[in-house]
């Protein structure tokens, strides 16, 4: 199948531009913006043509990446201006497991617990009520038994995953991040 260079460049440009603006771009938005430019007889053929064009773009441009969210939506971003970490947070923004995922990632990777307040800021942007609601649901259900919380001496809640951190370490690090760091400048 032949793709015009122009089409490939236009799609690639759109992905890069949206990443530059701090957004990942869903497949659907790309198709909506460009689908009508693809003059072919049937819509069905048009879709498969478009899919193949995207595959070609992924193959030819090392910076262009695709992420598929739990609900099946595919997103595209360019690693020239967006990290995998950031893109994966954006792609999971509407997953009800996002908070648990982030807690587990932090516990495993750094390793450290995270303050509840992390989820109030960009790029999460949840309200305190939304976070507490999600936690309530999580704490009572299967699949989240490893997500635990500890409260620091100034009353702030930190979350961690017991798969990766033991309780003593989580308590110590939460206290350090919340109070120790500022007291030991």
């Amino acid at each position, binding site marked *: 199948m032949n793709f015009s260079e122009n089409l490939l460049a236009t799609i690639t440009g759109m992905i890069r531009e949206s990443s530059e603006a701090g957004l990942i771009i869903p497949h659907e938005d790309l198709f909506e913006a460009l689908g009508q430019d693809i003059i072919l007889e049937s819509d069905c053929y048009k879709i498969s043509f478009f899919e193949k064009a995207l595959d070609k773009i992924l193959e030819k441009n090392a910076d262009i990446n695709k992420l598929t969210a739990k609900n099946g939506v595919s997103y595209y971003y360019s690693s020239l201006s967006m990290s995998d970490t950031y893109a994966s947070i954006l792609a999971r923004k509407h997953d009800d497991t996002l908070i648990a995922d982030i807690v587990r990632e932090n516990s495993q990777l750094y390793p450290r617990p995270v303050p509840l307040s992390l989820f109030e800021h960009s790029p999460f942007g949840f309200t305190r009520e939304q976070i507490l609601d999600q936690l309530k649901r999580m704490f009572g259900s299967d699949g989240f038994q490893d997500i635990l919380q500890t409260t620091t001496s100034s009353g702030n809640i930190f979350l961690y995953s017991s798969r990766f951190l033991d309780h*003593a370490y989580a308590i110590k690090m939460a206290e350090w991040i919340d109070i*120790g760091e500022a007291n030991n400048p």
Partner: protein
Amino acid sequence: MANYGGWVGKTLRVDLSNGNISIENTLEKYKDYLGGTGIGYKVLWDEVPAGTQPFDPVNRIVFGVGPLAGTGAPCNGRTAITTLWPTCWPKSLVASGHMGGNFAAELKYAGFDAIIIYGKADQPVWLCILDGKAEIRDARNLWGEGIRRTSMEISRQMGPRASVAAIGQAGENLVPMSVVINSHSHSAGGVGSVMGSKNLKAIGVLGTGSIRIAGNKEEWEKAVNYHLSLLGANNQHVVPDSPQKWSEYYGPTRWVASPGRRWGAASSSIDTGSCDPHNLNRIAYRTNNAAFFLGERAWKYTVRGNGCSSCPIRCHTILKVPSVSSKYGIPEIGQNTCVGMLFGRNFFRSFPDGPKGETSIEACMVGMSLADDLGIWDNYGQMQRDFQELYYSGILKEKVGSKEFKSYSWDEYEKGSPNFLFKLLRGIALKRDELTTALGMGTGYHLERWGIPEKDWQERPELSYWKMGHPRHHSSEEAGQTGVIINTQYNRDSQCHSHTNFIRNGLPLHVQKQIAVDIWGSTDAIDAMSAYSPMNVYKAKMAKWSILRKELHDSLSICNWMGPWIASPLKEHNYKGDDSVESLLYSLATGNPKSREELDKDSERIFVLHRALTIRDMQTSDMRTKHDTVPKWIFKDQAGKPPFSSGSSAMDPDDIKLAMDMFYSEMGWDLETGAPRTETYQKLGLQDVADVFDRNGLAVG
């Protein structure tokens, strides 16, 4: 003598007793000591006899800057002030304080690498240094005035570009807990009273000169830009504190800029935005230490960052809090960083609206306004910890007597009212009563005065007290044995940031460990914080490297609150920085090419001279048991967990003995005493030290 760049080549010598001012060649005498603390230690070794007290006229106070001060090298605005330390207990020993601001650069532009001051003027004076000339001027009209008015008056005489380093009433009144300050908030703790003892109110410097860069101009610019590309936020934190579109990692760091976080009190509110590390024009937006220390609320009061010459980090955040001028009668603008910013707040246990509410910010504003005008030092927060402990334990009430106790409004204090600070801080500067006189002496002398054994403080982790009148400064709580070793070595709080800047940089542990292999030879050099492994030789190497880099920075005049730059925000470099950026800049600036190893040897000479001064003035070579001591609290974990268990910061006594052995061994020092051996002095070009110790019985094999 070769025509070096970097240094301006002249050192100013001022004898205040007879008014003699002379100039000597910096390089002839001090080139092997680079500048800064290096010059300071050398002058104290050569000119201040053992047994001298800090306020004796023969004591020297040395304002030393290095070959990078005043150049375009990033973060170069540091002045090291070395003298006999008045709060070092039970005996004053050598130490140095470090101030940023514009003083270092201006001193070079005025034609000097250092000022050596001694003697005592017979009436208050200030030192005017203007384009290669110095003059002692009458300061009787300034005596009794605060630092702000003094600086303004001298600037009025010298011109608005002058940099003025002044003491306040605390220094004048020989309060050991006193500072000298330049550029509004850049202070060096502990030395104000030494200036006061010499009747020296201030030093004003102004110059129109420049600093010659010996190397090729393009190469120099390339080196400066390369160094800038390695910078993180303050404390060389290399990842942002929240997920950002360009960033692979995030963590609890001082890189607090983010889209939507705004300098709310700037003339038109400014979004700090996404600070991609490749955009060098946005470095100054990364750090906001008011927001880091005081919380989200501080953003709306932020005007911008301020800082030292040639430093894009601007870690002294300027705050504008209009309510404080009507409520407390103080200026609505204040600026500072770290403990300077928290000075007022840290006296209180709680505030009516919580630890990060409005009242806490007001307490910071009142504290900064008073302390930075009266010129009070807080010994890295120890003064406030002592105060809280003494009050809440009832000791304070018992010691000051009921009349004095009742003269303070303790209700106001317990309610967290910043009004309480006015009487207390003015009292400290004026030595007004027993409480304030005692607090102003520094912890060691204060405890002695009130009959409290030092060991009582050394058992309490929450007091953070280490030894000899001073607190811990990045010790076992965050850096295990490495932190312990570093904290044993100085005669004040250690002020070393080489290790902590790396450990707290925000990168995942596995990335840090990869960098550790390059620098110290093994992933085992570092552990996760509070999950420590037993001592190993790589931790000893890290301790040695950390101390030598601190001395190097303090001698070149670059900021150890930023360096070293072994990690960077650059993913394409696997977050590695460069361990030899100092030697690159030094070599180009001076035209005296030195490798990283050669510069490390210079720093070792400087640090070992500090050790020799300590040995000479303590009159013992037994550093191991008489000097390099640790407080008992390091062996206890607050949650009762044993050493080497996850979540425990407790150290093990035998392991710490091993740590000291390994460190002494890395340094080439005697294991039994912890003193450098004669051959170590010789190897470092310190034959004169070896000779003196040979004569007076302090030499070690």
